[in-house]
C-alpha cells in the first residue's frame, strides 16, 4: 500500500497553475476553431490538484517510467485540458499546444496513445478509460510494481454500459490502487443530464457496485487534494471521488450556455473570456 503523507500545498501557486491551464485551453481551442473548452474547464482544478499538488508521481523526462502513477483521461473530449497539463508539467514543449487539430500534429482532437508522452490511452469514444485503468492495476500485480491509477470520467459517460462492466470488475479484483474521479458538471452534449438521461442516485450506484465513494467541490483545490490523499479510504475497494463541478467554469457566459460543449469560442469571445480568467 502506498503511503501518502498529508503535504502542505501552496494554494496560490496551484491557483496560478489552474489559471494558466484555462488560458491555454482557451487559446488552443480558439486557435483551432473547434474543440471542447467547457468540458475542459470543468476539470481544471481536479487535474491541477492531481498533477501539480504532489499526488501523481511522474517523470516528464522519463514518461514511461514503469513505476509511474497512471492518469487516464476517459472523457477524451477534454483533450485540450490533458495537453495543457502535460505541456505545463514538462512532457513536451508548450509550442505543441498551438498545433491542436492541425495536419501532421501529434496533438489530435482526442488523445491518441503513442503520439505524445504522457498519453496513456486512446479515448474519445466514451466509456472506455476505466477498463484500461483496471488493466494497469492488474499489470502492477504481475510486474510487482507499486503505483496508483487515476481515471477521469465524465458524467454523461456514465450512461455507457462499459463503465459499469468496469465498475463491477474493479470491485471484483479488489482494485484499491484505482481511483476514479467523476467530473460531475451536470451537462451532456444535448442538455442537462437530469433531463436527457438521469444518473441519480449516482453515489449510491457506485457504492452498490462495491466502491468507496466520497464527494467534493470540484473547484476547491485544497478539498480535492485532501480527498485524493485520503484514498484508498477502504482497503480492498476501488475509490470513487465524485467532483461536483460547473461546466465551463471560470468564464461566466460559457457557464451559462451548455451549447459550448463542442464549440470553441470566437476570437472576440476568447478575448472577453481571457479578461475574466485573468481577474480571478
Amino acid at each position: 500500500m502506498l503511503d501518502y503523507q498529508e503535504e502542505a500545498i501552496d494554494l496560490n501557486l496551484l491557483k496560478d497553475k489552474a489559471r494558466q491551464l484555462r488560458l491555454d485551453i482557451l487559446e488552443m481551442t480558439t486557435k483551432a476553431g473547434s474543440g471542447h473548452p467547457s468540458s475542459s474547464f470543468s476539470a481544471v482544478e481536479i487535474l491541477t490538484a492531481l498533477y501539480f499538488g504532489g499526488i501523481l508521481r511522474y517523470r516528464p523526462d522519463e514518461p514511461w517510467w514503469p513505476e509511474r502513477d497512471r492518469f487516464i483521461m476517459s472523457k477524451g473530449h477534454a483533450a485540450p485540458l490533458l495537453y495543457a497539463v502535460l505541456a505545463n508539467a514538462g512532457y513536451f514543449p508548450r509550442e505543441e499546444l498551438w498545433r491542436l487539430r492541425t495536419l501532421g500534429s501529434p496533438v489530435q482532437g482526442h488523445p491518441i496513445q503513442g503520439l505524445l508522452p504522457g498519453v496513456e490511452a486512446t479515448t474519445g469514444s466514451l466509456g472506455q478509460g476505466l477498463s484500461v485503468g483496471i488493466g494497469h492495476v492488474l499489470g502492477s500485480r504481475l510486474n510487482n510494481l507499486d503505483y496508483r491509477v487515476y481515471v477521469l470520467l465524465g458524467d454523461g459517460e456514465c450512461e455507457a454500459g462499459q463503465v459499469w462492466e468496469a465498475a463491477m470488475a474493479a470491485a471484483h479484483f479488489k482494485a484499491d490502487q484505482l481511483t476514479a474521479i467523476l467530473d460531475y458538471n451536470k451537462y451532456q452534449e444535448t442538455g442537462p443530464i437530469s433531463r436527457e438521461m438521469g444518473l441519480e442516485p449516482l453515489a449510491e450506484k457506485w457504492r452498490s457496485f462495491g466502491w468507496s465513494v466520497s464527494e467534493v467541490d470540484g473547484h476547491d483545490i485544497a478539498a480535492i487534494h485532501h480527498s485524493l490523499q485520503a484514498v484508498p479510504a477502504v482497503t480492498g475497494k476501488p475509490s470513487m471521488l465524485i467532483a461536483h463541478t460547473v461546466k465551463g467554469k471560470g468564464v461566466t457566459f460559457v457557464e451559462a450556455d451548455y451549447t459550448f460543449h463542442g464549440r470553441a469560442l470566437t476570437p472576440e469571445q476568447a478575448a472577453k473570456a481571457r479578461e475574466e480568467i485573468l481577474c480571478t
Partner: protein
Amino acid sequence: MHIGEKAGLKLGKAMRDVFGEALLAVCQANPRVVVLDGDLSNSTKTEYVRKTLPERFFNIGIAESNLVGIGAGLAGCGLIPWITSFSSFLLCNAYDQIRLAVAISNINAKILGSHGGITLGKDGPTQMGIEDLALMGGLPTMVILVPCDEASLRAAVKAATDYVGPVFLRSSRVPMPQIYPEERCPFEIGKANVVRQGDDLTIVACGLMVGMALDAAAELVEQGITARVLDLHTLRPMDTAALIAAARETGAIVTAEEHLLQGGMGSNIARIVTEACPVPMRFIGLVDTYVESADPYELLEKYHLTAKDIAAAAVEVLAAKRKTADVVPAQA
C-alpha cells in the same frame, strides 16, 4: 467423408484443443504473456492456462468491452495480452474497443476469435462468426491470421505472440485435416504457402477451406485439370506477390472462405488481381445470408462450401479463361 479425405489427408484433433495447448506453450515460454477470457475458457480451451498458470489468467466475465479495455491496459504495462472469446461475441460486442484501444492505439495485443465460420453448427447463427474477417479488415493496423490445420495453428499462435503489434487470429471448432507436418510448418506472417502445385488455375483459400481446396484439386485431377492451391493464412498483410504470381502463371483464380463474400478474403484478392493482372475469378463463400442450426457438414453442403462446389467453380473459371484466350490472342 471428412474434409481432406479425397486429398489423402488425416483429420487432426479439435482445433480448440490445439489452440489451448499452443497458448499454454507460449505462456510457458514467455512470462510476459497473459490470457483474458470472456467466460468461455472451457470452450476456447484457455482453461489449460487457467489450470497451469492461474496468476496469468483473468476471467473478465461476460463483458467483452471491458475484456478488451483491460487487455489494452495490460499491454500498456509491457505485458502481452491474449484477449479471447468467440469471434462473434468478441468482435460484435467490442468492435469499438478493439478499434480504439487496440487498433488506433496500435498496441501489442493479440485477439483470438474462436468458433469462426459456420462449422460450430448446432449452436446456430447467433454464435457464428461469419463477418469477423470483414470487421477486422476494417482496422488498418490489425494483422489477420486464419490458420488451416493443427501445425499452422500452433505456428500462428507463436508468430502472433512474437510479432509486435495488434493481431487477430481466427480459429474454428471442427477438426481440420493435417496439411503440414507438425514440426515443419513454414508459417511466416504475410507469406502465403503453395500447398499444391498446378498450372491450370489457382484456388486461394484460408482456414477450413484449404483442406476443401485440396480435396477439390484431387477431384479436378480426375478431369485432367491441375490446380495450384494457395494457403492464404494471413489476410493482412496480404501476400500480393503470391496472388499476382498465381494470376500471371495460372490465369484463373477461385477463392474459398468460410465467411460472407462481402468484405471477406475473396473481395480483397479481387481488388489486387484486378489492378495488377485481371484474370477470370470465381468466389466460394456465404452469399448475403445467415445460416441455421445443423450438423457442420450439412451446413457446408447446403451453403455450397464443399470441395464439389470449389471444383465446379474451377471448371467454370477455366472455361472463362479459355474463352478469354480465344477472344484476345496471347502476345507472343
